[in-house]
């Protein structure tokens, strides 16, 4: 299969976010990383309630307000204006990170430059140039009961993002539990990538060739499906 054919089978970012959202159970507390992971909030299955946490001190925030209605003291970690849902709470930064580090969050969903089969994550800087900035990423990867990564399966120039060992600076060691890519859903179990779902029409050998570490099959591998979605951010 050519790179073009591999590319043609991929899910859009919105579809990756949708697929991850299906695994967030009712009644959970969830932190979504800045940017792409924020899309997951849009695709919550009906009938399930999730309370979203933002590091800067809000539980249970909702959609952005209409333009012109922003209150800039009511923002998320990405510094975007948000609204509150009934039952929301404010707290200071030490309490906020007690929620993170203390194991009180059920799920954190983050983007990635690279994920290693060991569960190591690299998502905060690519090289040593420029101004380094880490924010809350290193805290978020420790403490949430499950750490999901959503990502393209390969880089823009076709290099694997799922690797044996990360070559970029680490955000955390052995912290990722599940990866949702444009082509597959993969669990990290005892230092191995275990394939759970892959795109229909994709051959295992092709997926393996696009992955920088061994893919294991410990049980059934099902089709990775997502509805057609329109997203202005996709």
């Amino acid at each position, binding site marked *: 299969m050519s790179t073009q054919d591999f590319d043609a089978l991929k899910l859009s970012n919105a579809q990756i976010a949708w697929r991850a959202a299906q695994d967030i159970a009712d009644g959970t507390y969830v932190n979504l990383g800045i940017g792409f992971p924020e899309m997951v909030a849009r695709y919550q299955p009906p009938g399930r309630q999730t309370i979203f946490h933002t590091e800067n001190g809000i539980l249970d925030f909702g959609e952005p307000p209409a333009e012109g209605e922003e209150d800039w003291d009511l923002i998320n970690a990405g510094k975007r204006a948000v609204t509150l849902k009934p039952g929301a709470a*404010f707290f200071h*930064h*030490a309490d906020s990170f007690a929620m993170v*580090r203390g194991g009180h969050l059920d799920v954190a969903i983050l983007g990635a430059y690279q994920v290693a089969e060991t569960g190591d994550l690299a998502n905060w800087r690519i090289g040593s140039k420029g101004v380094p900035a880490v924010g809350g990423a290193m805290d978020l990867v420790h403490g949430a009961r499950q750490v999901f990564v959503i990502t393209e399966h390969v880089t823009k120039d076709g290099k694997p993002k799922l690797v044996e060992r990360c070559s970029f*600076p*680490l955000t*955390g060691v052995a912290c990722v539990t599940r990866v949702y890519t444009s082509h597959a859903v993969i669990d990290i179990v005892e230092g191995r990538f275990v394939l759970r779902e892959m795109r229909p029409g994709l051959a295992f050998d092709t997926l393996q060739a696009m992955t920088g570490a061994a893919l294991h099959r410990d049980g059934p591998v099902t089709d990775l499906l997502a509805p057609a979605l329109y997203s202005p951010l996709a």
Partner: protein
Amino acid sequence: MDKQVASAAEAVAGIGDGATVMIGGFGGSGAPIELIHALIDKGPKGLTVINNNAGNGRIGIAAMIDAGLVKKMICSFPRSSDPRAFTDRYLAGEIELELVPQGTLAERIRAGGAGIPAFYTPTGFGTELAEGKVIAEFDGRSYVQERWLKADFALIKAHLGDRHGNLTYNKAARNFNPLMCTAAETTIVQVSEIVPLGGIDPEHVVTPGIFVDRVVEIADPAQEEVLIRAGAVYA
């Protein structure tokens, strides 16, 4: 007991060259703009500034950097919609950066205010930000030792205050402000309104006055994000 002072200029009195200054806020929310600008007018040099970020646009902390007040930033995320002030000086080697994960920054300040000289956190283990730090294993997991963080002064934005220094905050403008109140030798607070004693229900006090030294009323304070969007410059 009366901690009120009459003006922002009076509030920042005594902040001299080489001081370490915590400044509350997360991005534009909770940033004490009037106190920062009063400090720029006073003009101390060689400051170490502790904040989550490293300034935005040409106001607030960015204006402090532009005015050459800042020798070192201790922060988690020195980026913003317009980070030129910090970025230019950093890339020119004119300003130091101590980069700290956000939760570790919060806990170091909390520890400083609580008299806890060091603590262990899983955050940063195995990363370049833990290089050179003491590592210890507890119950089979590795943790990084982090030291407390204290300051000579804290500049804080709160909502309501009374003359004892009891404070409330506005929404997510709370962020680092209550922590920084506890961790500075002299804590200086601007509030939107000073209310009479008893005007804040004791059940609703977020920062008890024991952590506060000076309170100045700045009615209708500037909001950093609003200034940024208006392209404001402080010079």
